[in-house]
């Protein structure tokens, strides 16, 4: 018998197999609005008040943030100890884009095409970003039975009616054009022989509008955007972080102080418009969770913007993706794409019960997994963790032999690397820290509040998804709001005159920290997670 798991897990699999035929004959019931609210309140980590702290300084003073983010907000700048001569300008551009992921690259392409002299600075390589790791797909209402209004309803409702309506409107209305733009750049979406896009459901969608490129959707988009940035000759300064926004005497953004990650040298970039596109925060490990995120996802842009005076929105709302890998340990926290459920796999507990509909929204399904594990219906994993099954063999039964290799080859490869054939046995999952629902507050045009020539785009921006994001709306968001930021920045720089760059706001922030009696002993932004072990 094929047994790639420890004995207790194989015992549980027998129960999963025993109920499979019966489970496949009926679809699990959808929860009512009240049942969802109850499940979230009892089990979602956002409701665990112990993992939050009050913000003591800055525009969101008095609100709460995850402990790790609050610690960064309460830490001082590197530039309070490291001295940099900011009168010496290393780069002088119209538009400075901080971050080289999906949003930053889309932004730079559009700004360049609109005639701006644009430059990207990025902490690691261009394309090293959560966009590259997005697997399942990208939403757009482009089918006959669908409409942007229907997409609006799904997005707004899925985000608990907390999203900014003007942002949701832009997201859904510009979605089809985003897909068309990508397709015309050469992105290969899954299509039928006649060109019709293959679209599926995601959690919380009421129409099948998930477009995909197998389960390499983000990688396919990111590598194409990166190629286009290089083809256009847009300067990309890699292995270089922004550590502070520069401002001028009029309170405008004036560029950024940069840090060469390899040499430790500081550089100064002057710009007429600055775009923060630094991505997410998974590597902050809120609530002690593992993460599906990129190594560089450390909330840097939130700190940069906040210290410059831009407020945050929903900084206390975090997305835990319901299905992160929990076994084997080498892939702990790795994303198991929602597409696995889109193409047919159910969530099944240790007793073989399909305890929930597999396509409830992410926050609801994550809470469901946590409930099953806490209430004794999880499967024990060596090392003290628990998980529930994602019944992948169902996919081959439903879609025919070969469906897994064709539709979710990355997942198949990730598990086969450790000898687990998901065509034959289910895989074990537990929620993983996946997405920062909030971020820098932006208006309908993509500009941050307070600072007139500072924009934010992509995961660093908040308000588009309310307090829960749907699958396929983040890849969409980085393209729609990245492109929008590029166009707006290219229009804006022509009317901006920059004065003398200064760091007075950084000094003032430091004073505020001191008056509040805060001394964390850390500097921020984090830039890189502290994974190196220095024990003896």
């Amino acid at each position, binding site marked *: 018998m094929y047994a790639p798991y420890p004995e207790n897990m194989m015992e549980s699999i027998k129960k999963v197999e025993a109920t499979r035929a019966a489970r496949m004959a009926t679809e699990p019931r959808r929860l009512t609005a009240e049942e969802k609210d109850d499940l979230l309140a009892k089990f979602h980590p956002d409701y665990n008040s112990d993992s939050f702290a009050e913000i003591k300084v800055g525009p969101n003073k008095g609100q709460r943030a995850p402990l790790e983010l609050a610690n960064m907000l309460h830490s001082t700048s590197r530039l309070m100890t490291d001295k940099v001569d900011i009168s010496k300008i290393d780069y002088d551009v119209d538009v400075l884009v901080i971050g080289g992921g999906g949003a930053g690259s889309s932004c730079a392409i559009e700004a360049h095409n609109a005639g701006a002299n644009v430059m990207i600075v990025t902490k690691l390589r261009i394309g090293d970003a959560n966009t590259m790791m997005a697997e399942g797909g990208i939403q757009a209402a482009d089918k006959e039975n669908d409409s942007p209004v229907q997409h609006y309803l799904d997005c707004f409702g899925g985000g608990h009616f907390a999203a900014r309506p003007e942002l949701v409107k832009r997201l859904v209305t510009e979605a089809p*054009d985003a897909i068309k733009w990508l397709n015309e750049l050469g992105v290969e979406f899954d299509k039928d022989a*006649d060109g019709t896009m293959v679209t599926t459901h995601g959690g919380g969608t009421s129409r099948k509008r998930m477009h995909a490129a197998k389960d390499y959707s983000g990688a396919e988009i990111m590598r194409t955007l990166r190629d286009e940035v290089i083809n256009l000759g847009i300067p990309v300064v890699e292995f270089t972080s922004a550590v502070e926004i520069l401002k001028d005497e009029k309170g405008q953004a004036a560029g950024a102080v940069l840090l060469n990650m390899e040499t430790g040298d500081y550089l100064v970039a002057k710009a007429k418009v600055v775009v923060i596109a630094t991505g997410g925060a998974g590597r902050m490990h809120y609530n002690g969770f593992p993460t599906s995120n990129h190594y560089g996802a450390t909330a840097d842009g939130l700190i940069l913007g906040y210290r410059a005076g831009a407020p945050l929105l929903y900084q206390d709302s975090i997305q835990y993706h319901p299905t992160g890998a929990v076994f084997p340990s080498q892939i702990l926290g790795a994303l198991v794409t929602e597409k696995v459920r889109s193409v047919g796999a159910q969530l099944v507990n240790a007793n073989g019960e399909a305890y929930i509909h597999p396509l409830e929204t992410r926050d609801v399904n994550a809470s469901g997994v946590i409930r099953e594990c806490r209430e004794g219906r999880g499967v024990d994993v060596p090392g003290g963790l628990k998980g529930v099954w994602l019944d992948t063999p169902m996919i081959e039964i439903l879609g025919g032999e070969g469906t897994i290799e064709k539709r979710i080859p990355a997942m198949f490869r990730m598990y086969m690397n450790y000898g687990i054939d998901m065509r034959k046995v289910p895989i074990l999952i537990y929620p993983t820290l996946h997405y920062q629902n909030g971020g820098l507050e932006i208006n309908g045009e993509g500009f941050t509040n307070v600072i007139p020539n500072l924009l934010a785009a992509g995961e660093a921006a908040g308000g588009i998804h309310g307090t829960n994001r749907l699958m396929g709306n983040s890849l969409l968001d980085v393209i729609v709001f990245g492109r929008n930021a590029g166009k707006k920045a290219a229009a804006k720089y022509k009317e901006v005159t920059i004065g003398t760059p200064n760091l007075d706001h950084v000094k003032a922030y430091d004073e505020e920290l001191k008056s509040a009696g805060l001394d964390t002993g850390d500097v921020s932004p984090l830039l890189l997670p502290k994974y*190196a072990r220095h024990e003896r």
Partner: protein
Amino acid sequence: MEEMVNVYFYGKKYTVPAALTIQTAMEYAGYTLKRGVGCRHGFCGACACIYRIKGKNELKTGLACTTQVQEGMYITQIPYFPTDKRTYDINDLSANQKVMMELYPEIYSCIGCNACTKACPQSLETMQYIAYAQRGDMKACAEASFDCIMCGTCSVRCPAGISHPMVGLLARRLNGKYIEPEAKHLTKRVEEINNGDFDEAMAEMMNKPVDEVKQLYNTREIEK
């Protein structure tokens, strides 16, 4: 007691838990990675490495983030490799053999050693997709190279100096843009949106009181 193994990073010995990947083992050893680290889950190609097990002749390639350590592993990372990307305006190209001959002529110097295929951590038929490119079969090249994460281990091993990931990328962009049939429903929807066909319904939705939107959301019909 946790099982430990001896590994060698750039020739220097470290004793690390056997369950770790090369990447987490380096961090266990005390490295703060800047180069040679990216998504950490096998999607970005940042962490290519070459290793040899002490006493064995074969030189292996892999990703540091997905390769588990073994006893006697001698490891070096390839945080950067000078693959040669040619620049072009995608709008000026057409999907034919001439494009490859002009942009990547070195593919015709392939000696058929298949070292690229053996090096691929994604188990792609790398030499085969280069053969498709030689013939100008962009669709086949695109399909066969689709799962490429552009780590460059193929190019490291290529005696002909071919930049395989760049060839596959060009084929995919040409296929996606010029060969795959147009999604007519998408073109139509973009026209409808530009024409303002949904403006009124959108304004109506946005102006509804939240309770009414909640009601609509909770009772909406879900496509089977």
